[in-house]
């Protein structure tokens, strides 16, 4: 079967990027920089090939990247929307190569189809930093670096929070899974299941795929509540599905504890839903935007000759304790 199912990320140890302000002066005999044209006062174009702007989480990544890039006057950020279409995304990467951008950021819609395009960029001497999703190959060799969260660990944290804090006395739980064919959906499902194993009184009585979509989640969770009226909590693999689950619970006149994933900001996002008391928690899926711009700074401005191949960004639990103060961030 496919190699991307159940592929565990080798979450490297947390690699903290040195703040670019700490440029070490006069590095003698350093290895060649990754980008020869690097310079403190240069002007650089960074191309970001986004998988699909239609997903709210990805728009959130775009917003954070734009904010982080704006803070660096030497950088111009260009974002191309692959619109969930590997053909479109491939042509956009090719266009960035034509433009000779100084650095390519990419969240590939799918791994295998975008692998050749990433190789073409690397062959053209453009460093490639992959964000949130990987292409095939090895970080540090086939592409410059990978920055992202660890889906399994995030869901594991949600499962452990359920065991210890949410349902310490046990009860029936349900899971809404993302698009079953996608790696994050599989990893988040497994992570949550492993997280609730520590409490034997919790039973997962229903799991259904709702493809990341709120309307499908509402329908699926309404059916689950019909079949299992004693469900005490539901784990939704993203915030959108958690919003759908809330509608279903309200429709059934039941109070169900809801955990989301992503921790999106804004009025429709998970942080506000927790602050309002609609959900019990949501676990952020960090965008890695700040880390990506920091890495671009060290490559393009500080003439780094190497960067960490994998940067894993940790999740933050958004609970009633901290939701209000996180809203302002």
């Amino acid at each position, binding site marked *: 079967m496919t190699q991307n199912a159940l592929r565990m990320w080798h979450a490297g140890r947390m690699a903290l990027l040195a703040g670019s302000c700490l440029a070490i002066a006069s590095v003698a005999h350093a290895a060649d920089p990754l980008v020869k044209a690097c310079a403190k006062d240069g002007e650089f174009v960074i191309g970001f090939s986004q998988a699909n702007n239609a997903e709210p989480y990805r728009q959130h990544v775009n917003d954070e990247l734009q904010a982080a890039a704006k803070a660096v006057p030497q950088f111009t950020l260009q974002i191309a929307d692959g619109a969930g279409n590997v053909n479109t995304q491939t*042509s956009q990467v090719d266009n960035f190569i034509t*433009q000779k951008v100084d650095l390519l950021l990419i969240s590939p819609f799918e791994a295998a189809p975008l692998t050749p395009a990433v190789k073409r960029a690397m062959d053209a001497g453009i460093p490639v930093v992959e964000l949130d999703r990987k292409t095939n190959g090895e970080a540090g060799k086939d592409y410059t670096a990978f920055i992202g969260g660890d889906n399994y660990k995030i869901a594991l944290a949600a499962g452990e929070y359920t065991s210890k804090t949410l349902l310490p006395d046990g009860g029936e739980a349900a899971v809404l899974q993302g698009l079953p*064919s996608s790696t994050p959906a599989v990893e988040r499902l497994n992570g949550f299941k492993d997280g609730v194993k520590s409490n034997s009184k919790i039973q997962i009585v229903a799991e259904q795929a709702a493809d990341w979509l709120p309307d499908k989640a509402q329908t699926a969770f309404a059916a689950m509540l019909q079949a299992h009226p004693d469900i005490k909590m539901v784990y939704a693999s993203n915030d959108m599905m958690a919003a759908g689950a809330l509608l279903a619970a309200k429709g059934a006149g039941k109070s169900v504890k809801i955990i989301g994933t992503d921790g999106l900001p804004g009025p429709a996002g998970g942080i506000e839903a927790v602050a309002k008391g609609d959900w019990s928690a949501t676990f952020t899926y960090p965008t890695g935007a700040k880390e990506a711009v920091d890495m671009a700074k060290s490559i393009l401005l500080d003439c780094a000759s190497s960067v960490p191949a994998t940067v894993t960004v940790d999740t933050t639990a958004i609970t009633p304790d901290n939701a209000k103060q996180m809203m302002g961030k």
Partner: protein
Amino acid sequence: MSEQQIASNPAVQPAKRIDPLAVLVRFQSLIGLILVFAGGIIFSPRRHGVILFIQPDNIANIVRAVSETGIIAIGMTFVIITAGIDLSVGATLGLASVVTATLMVSGGFGLVTTVLAVLLMGTCFGLVQGAISSKFRLEAFIVTLAGLQAARGLALVVSDNQYINISYGDGPGLAPPIFAILGGRLFGNVVPVATIVFLIFACIATLALNTTRFGRYVYAVGGNERAARISGVPVSAIKIAVYAITGFASALAGIVHAGQFNFGSANDGTGYELTAIAAVVIGGTSLFGGSGSMVGTIAGTIMLGALANILQLNNITPAMQLLATAAIIVLAAVLQSLVRRREGLGR
């Protein structure tokens, strides 16, 4: 019924008057293509004095990106000239891509067997839709809408809701390495192989439409079905044949897709039917049937690709691209309607 009689049938005859507006419509997509290219050159970003837009690499990017929708649009042209429509093409591409991947990876079939089987499957899929539509006198819109759902459903069943990655090599579970050539480039590593497939298919289709009896029959069926029937054109057979062609074209596009991207996915090709219809309409083919040109479709396809490219090179948002495409479609349709009105067809 002889060919001469068909040729003298008014429904089949081209308009005699030379009308400048009609000429404009006849070549609207070529004129549009020239305008887009001129705009591309004018508005192209420059790097060190080099106009990026007309770099061979960039032109290659443009024609590679449109090769899949182009192949589909070519098939769609036949259907639309008969006043039909085929909404199942994008879904058939997805189905063909997963079947291609499955046959080679888990089936262990060779390249030739796989390609022939997938092309046959696509052709049959189109044949069945054409036959149902023709036999039960159903709107092609409805039949192919059902065909779209059926193809997606079948694709999900075949692929078990999974993306199927294609790895190359010799042995079980590996596809023949030659298949990866579809993602490659020839002639000094410039011309994308996917584009070559598109252009070969385009040449064959242009010849078929412009020089064969079949092509004349296609125009006849779309121009005036009753007249065509009376003059002895096998209307049902032609109608079934054009859907078989779109099925074949979609399967071919699916094979190209799988080869370019080394994977098959049931959801790929979503929305391609609309892109293809847009290219055909911009190419000057009327949805009322009876008139249209293959060269126009090809120009329309490349024009849409060039437009997307120049907007991205200038970092203009995808929203603008959609709005620009919308404006071009409306313009093309308005031009056609003006000509029709002038010819007294009243629609």
